[in-house]
């Protein structure tokens, strides 16, 4: 097990270094001059420009610049936003919980409904229920979620007025950020009703972001269940007269969870892609919206290290999923 862990960890390092190289290169490829961006509206004479380039170390050879970038990263220095002068880490840390809250809500929704739908479809294979569920799943999988969000807003928020249009909380509630997770913070504060209000704000964005993972998980669960139901031990158990409900939910589902877990891992990347769109549409103050705006505004340190942080996150989640997968399935652990 330890050697498995070590091997996996060893693979992480070159990947991470590669990502730093990528973000380093990206910033130098984007047209535009960081010094000019930094100076904003200020008039710039060539001498001041050269001084600023020197101060930022942008006049040194590229490999030196890269090494000093790595050095900075090693010290945990992610630089400052050019627009706000706030440290990139602080901005990230302030916005990240909003994205995690949204993503977890979406995954929870997708996981529960997806497993349920997939299991039911597998059990009733070939029935109308099966076809209907899978048709819906494929539709969900094909959904342009930015449009889906617009349609839901149009219907539930504008037409019916059931859900708020955007944001995380009615601002009349004064809930200071403690954890950054609105559901937790509202519980910690003594504002009555704030928790339910936060929930009302969360529901539409979570549905939008959860749609595609829900579809994927439903499809995945169905095929994994079908596979498992064919296995000998299930047939044996069935022959022994185990109750069908117990059979499905205790034995089959547990085994079907393994491939589903991988999907969770694979979905992290697409979940973050989705978060970019969802956050933009619902004015959800998270990292997806933050990065898109930073790219538009040529806020180099934010773009560079924001992308780096996200990549690190994806790598980490995949690593954890890998490990869990190895734990759940000894065959994988020992094979490689």
């Amino acid at each position, binding site marked *: 097990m330890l050697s498995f862990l070590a091997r996996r960890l060893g*693979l992480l390092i*070159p*990947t991470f270094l*590669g*990502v730093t190289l*990528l973000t380093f290169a*990206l910033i130098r*490829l*984007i*047209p535009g001059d960081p010094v000019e961006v930094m100076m904003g509206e200020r008039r710039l004479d060539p001498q001041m420009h050269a001084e600023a380039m020197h101060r930022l170390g942008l006049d040194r050879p590229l490999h030196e610049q890269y090494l000093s970038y790595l050095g900075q990263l090693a010290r945990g220095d992610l630089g400052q936003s050019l627009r706000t002068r706030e440290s990139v880490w602080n901005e990230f840390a302030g916005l990240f919980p909003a994205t995690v809250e949204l993503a977890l809500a979406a995954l929870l929704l997708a996981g529960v409904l997806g497993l349920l739908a997939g299991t039911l479809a597998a059990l009733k294979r070939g029935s109308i229920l099966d076809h209907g569920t899978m*048709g819906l799943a*494929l*539709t969900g*999988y*094909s*959904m*342009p979620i*930015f*449009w*889906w969000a*617009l*349609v839901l*807003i*149009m219907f539930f928020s*504008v037409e019916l007025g059931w859900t708020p249009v955007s944001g995380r909380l009615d601002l009349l509630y004064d809930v200071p950020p403690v954890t950054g997770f609105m559901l937790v913070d509202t519980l910690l504060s003594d504002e009555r009703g704030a928790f339910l209000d936060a929930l009302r704000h969360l529901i539409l964005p979570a549905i939008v972001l959860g749609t595609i993972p829900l579809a*994927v998980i439903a*499809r*995945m669960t169905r*095929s*994994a269940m079908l*596979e498992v139901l064919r296995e000998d031990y299930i047939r044996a158990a069935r022959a022994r007269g185990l109750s069908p409900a117990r059979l499905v939910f205790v034995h089959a589902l547990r085994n079907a969870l393994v*491939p589903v877990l991988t*999907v969770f891992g694979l979905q992290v*990347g*697409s*979940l*973050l*892609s*989705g978060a*970019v*769109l969802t956050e*933009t549409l619902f004015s959800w103050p998270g990292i*997806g919206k933050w*990065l*898109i705006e930073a*790219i538009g505004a040529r806020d180099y340190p934010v*773009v560079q290290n924001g*992308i780096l942080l*996200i*990549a*690190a996150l*994806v*790598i980490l989640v995949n690593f954890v999923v890998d490990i869990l997968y190895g734990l759940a399935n000894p065959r994988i652990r020992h094979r490689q």
Partner: protein
Amino acid sequence: MNTSSLASEPAWPSPLRDFCRAFARNRGAFAALLFLALLALCALLAPWLAPFDPAAQHRDFLLTPPAWLEGGETRFPLGTDELGRDLLSRLIHGARLSLSIGLASVALSLLPGVLLGLCAGFFPRLLGPSIMRLMDIMLALPALLLAVAVVAVLGPGLLNTVLAIAIVSLPAYVRLTRAAVLGEIHRDYVTAAKLAGAGRLRLMFVAVLPNCLAPLIVQATLGFSAAILDAAALGFLGLGVQPPSPEWGSMLAAARDYIERAWWVVTLPGLAILSSVLAINLVGDGLRDALDPKLKNLA
């Protein structure tokens, strides 16, 4: 030899015929294929089918509702947008844009992807792992974010949208091809070819590649639909195809402001995206089932 006599003979187990039969049995996929054919026809004949130039502004008919609603005009069956442009014409021309973006980016990522994947599979010492690490790096970045970053470097526009999507979808093909190669490379027929003195190139392209085609075709179909979605998302963020090109995603972005007033400009482009992506995915499912029942387990 007489062709008619051939047809009456008991059928050989031709893989193509098997495939066609299997595919045709899948009614959903078949219907989707017909829909796609229709869409492709629309795209091809757009200038002749569309009642108006998609950029023509009818300035006295801003936001006209569809013909069947009160205030609608029969000239504009699906209504007009905020600049008085005929929505039907824009949707038809949009099909052209979306389908060609999809096709072009699939082609642009399929070819290098397959090549890299073959190399990765055939050179397991140094080249293979380095290619795979590179792909891991690209996979560590969320696709849309990577595409946005690529567009930020290259600038927005049709061609750069295609490039960005092609780059983003490269790793999938590389991984798939490599996995398929690794699955095939120890098979007897490959060993036999090797013993018979086939060169490495011949092994790669003539012996192994044709046997990896099934998953690649399925992946290319999925990539096609994903490309349409990604292009629309980029357009929606204002980074894709630029106005006045009637790209579905950028039409939606412009329509956001009219969500309370003009549902048709919000609904119709989205339906166009959804239905074409759904159709392609249905065809993809059908292809997968028909090509290789083993693949059914891939989500």
